[in-house]
């Protein structure tokens, strides 16, 4: 893939076609992976010797927490690309990611609280990682609200992209919060690849879940941003051709 094809897919009609083609593959394979991971995690994996069955929420907590941060990184990169090349496609991707990323952040917080209530004895502690994850949710919300409140769409795109770029300071804080501050939230379980601190029967469903969530996320973004591109280009010829093609 050379630079020329990148420019090609930066143009709205090509991006629209590509994302429509990718969407079904991504969504179906993502859902399949999630289902396999769910069966493996909820039924096949043995219960933990300390936590019993309660540990199984890890199969939902870890992928959403991981995606809440990766989605932000994607959003910030798309924002930067949009700001530099004034690309409408990049702005639509960034705008589509924001609510999805906020949803994953919310999921990560809620699943963590559900697990924390029986395990830590409290649903919420003012732990560095929990707090920084909450701030991530607030930044997502600020992005969404800022985008909605500015009436001029081009200004809204660029202003909220600037906010997304400034908010990226929060990502390393979340990632290293368990290393820098020795607080309640435990360190990572699977990133130590040579000696993972988790049994392999428990590990493979988690890996399936993480890949499934990521691919599902990509599919959702394809679908959402394709719609966004369609709305933005509603006055152009190719959209008219596309709509009339559907009606026939």
């Amino acid at each position, binding site marked *: 893939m050379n630079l020329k094809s990148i420019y090609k897919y930066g143009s709205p009609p090509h991006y629209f076609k590509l994302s429509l083609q990718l969407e079904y593959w991504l969504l179906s394979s993502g859902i399949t992976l999630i289902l396999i991971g769910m069966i493996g995690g909820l039924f096949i994996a043995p219960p933990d010797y300390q936590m019993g069955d309660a540990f199984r929420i890890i199969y939902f907590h870890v992928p959403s927490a991981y995606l809440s941060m990766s989605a932000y990184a994607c959003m910030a990169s798309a924002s930067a690309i949009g700001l530099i090349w004034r690309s409408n496609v990049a702005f639509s991707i960034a705008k589509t990611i924001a609510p999805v990323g906020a949803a994953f952040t919310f999921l990560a917080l809620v699943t963590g609280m559900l697990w924390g209530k029986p395990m830590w004895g409290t649903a919420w502690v003012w732990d560095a990682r929990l*707090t920084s994850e909450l*701030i991530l949710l*607030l*930044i997502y*919300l*600020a992005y969404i*609200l*800022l985008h909605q*409140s*500015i*009436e*001029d769409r081009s*200004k809204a795109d*660029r*202003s*909220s992209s*600037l*906010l997304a770029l*400034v*908010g990226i*300071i*929060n990502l390393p804080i979340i990632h290293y919060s368990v290393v820098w501050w020795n607080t309640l939230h435990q360190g990572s379980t699977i990133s130590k690849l040579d000696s993972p601190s988790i049994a392999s029967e428990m590990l493979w469903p988690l890996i399936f879940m993480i890949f499934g969530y990521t691919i599902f996320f990509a599919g959702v973004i394809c679908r959402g941003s394709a719609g966004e591109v369609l709305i933005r280009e509603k006055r152009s010829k190719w959209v008219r051709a596309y709509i009339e093609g559907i009606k026939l």
Partner: protein
Amino acid sequence: MLFRDIIRRDLKLSIRRSTDVLTGLIFFLLIALIFPLAAGTERDLLLKMVGPVMLISALLASMMSIQNIFKPDYINGYLEQMMITTNSFSALIAVKIMMFWMIFSMPLIVIASFIASTYYVTGFSIFTVVLTLLLSTLSLVNLSAFAASLTLAIRYPGALISLIVIPLSLPIIIFGSKAIEYSILSMDNSGPLYFLTGMMFFTCSLGPLVTASAIKISID
């Protein structure tokens, strides 16, 4: 000299529109004075509370009065004229932010040193309160100016400004409160103060750049 013009103009405007400045200062005073009445007036409790109260009141007051830093100039076209001069736009914005800090935050710090004594803070700790507020208001003003410039095109940006500023300013609030708390407990507070100083240089150097580009987006 354009810089001198901006300084003179902002000073003159702050005298002519002194209600804007005074409202912010009175707001700060009221928030800081309402806490002991609500939470109780025991000496130990107040000494524990003074750090967070000072930082949060300063944050709220600067978020409230920052709405007027660019808005009038945006409406009457002064910002646009600033943009087309040969000077660097971000340098001019830096001057404007520093003028806002001088006009609004310096009196606030003076008031804060008096409020601190109503919280039973004595001696050297009052100096720490002043120093902490000096460092943290510089960062807070830069962050709030960024939020104000992002929301220039919005008619009522109040709540949105706080949604943008509060997550970003959290480290300053946390370490600022720590610096005051450690000083009152007569512990070594150089760590939080170094952090605040670092944040101050970070926001003062990069803040005007980001703010200037946000204003450029809002204008064209």
